[in-house]
C-alpha cells in the first residue's frame, strides 16, 4: 500500500525582491513594496510531502525522526531568522517564494533518501502559497 505523508514546518526570514537585470523604475514597477531596499520579513510555513510503500513492520512511509531531522538540519537551520538575499543561492536569483520553494525541493531531493519526495508547498502568508513538484504529478 502506497501512502503520501505531509509534514508542516515553520520558519521566519526576510528578503528583498530586486533584479539586477532591471532598472530602478522597472524594479519598483515589478516588485512594488517588496522592492524596499531594507527588506521585509515573513513567517513561512513549509509543507513537505513524501510518498512510498507503508512498511509492514513499522507501519510507516518513513520515520518522522529522519524527516524532521533532515529538514531541521538542511532547511530550517539554513533559512530561519536569516536574510535570504545574503545567502549564496540568492546571490544571482531573486528570493521570491517561487524560487525558495524550488530551492527547498532541490535540497530535499539531493539528500533525503528515506522516501520519495513528492512536492514542496510554501506559504509566504496565509493568502499566498506556492507548490513545486518537479516532474511529479500534483495530486489533490
Amino acid at each position, binding site marked *: *500500500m*502506497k*501512502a*503520501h*505523508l*505531509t*509534514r*508542516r*514546518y515553520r520558519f521566519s526570514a526576510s528578503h528583498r525582491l530586486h533584479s539586477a537585470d532591471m532598472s530602478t523604475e522597472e524594479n519598483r514597477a515589478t516588485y512594488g513594496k517588496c522592492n524596499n531596499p531594507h527588506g521585509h520579513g515573513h513567517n513561512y510555513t513549509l509543507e513537505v510531502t513524501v510518498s512510498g*510503500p*507503508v512498511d509492514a*513492520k*513499522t*507501519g*510507516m*512511509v518513513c*520515520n*518522522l*525522526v529522519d524527516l524532521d531531522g533532515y529538514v531541521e538540519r538542511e532547511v530550517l537551520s539554513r533559512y530561519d531568522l536569516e536574510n535570504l538575499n545574503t545567502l549564496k543561492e540568492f546571490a544571482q536569483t531573486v528570493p521570491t517564494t517561487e524560487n525558495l520553494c524550488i530551492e527547498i525541493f532541490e535540497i530535499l531531493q539531493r539528500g533525503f533518501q528515506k522516501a520519495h519526495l513528492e512536492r514542496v508547498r510554501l506559504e509566504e502568508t496565509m493568502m499566498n502559497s506556492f507548490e513545486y513538484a518537479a516532474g511529479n504529478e500534483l*495530486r*489533490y
Partner: protein
Amino acid sequence: MVYLTRKAEFSASHYYHNPDFTPEENRRVFGKCNNPNGHGHNYTLEVTVKGEVDPRSGFVVDLKQLKDIMHREVLDAMDHRFLNKEVPEFLTKVPTTENLAIAIWQRLESKLQQAHLHRVRVYETPDLFVDFYGEKE
C-alpha cells in the same frame, strides 16, 4: 467530474509497538510513541469522493448517506477508543497515521454506492497528515 470532501473529527489513543521487534528495537524505532500506556490525538478525517453530478438531484453524493457511513464505519468504531485494543485492524498492525488512513479507506470503499472514493486524508495533528488514494503500490 466533481470532487466533494467531508470532514469529521475523532479522538483516540494509541501506541506504536511491533511484537516481532525486541524491546530495544521498539524503543529505537518508535521512540516516545512506544509507551505501552498509550497517548492520544485529536484526529481530523477528510473523505473526498468523486463522481458526475446527478442531473436530477444536483448531487455527487447524498451527503446524508456519506455522513452516516462515516459515522457508522469510522467514528463509532474509533472515537474515544484505544486503537490498539479496540479496533480489529490494529490488533495485528501498528496504528500509525498511514495504517489508519488505509484502514479507513478499506472500511468506506465497499459501503459507498453512488460516488467513488478518491482520497482519505487523516490529520494526526495540524502539522502531520497522510493521504491514501487506494494505491496498492
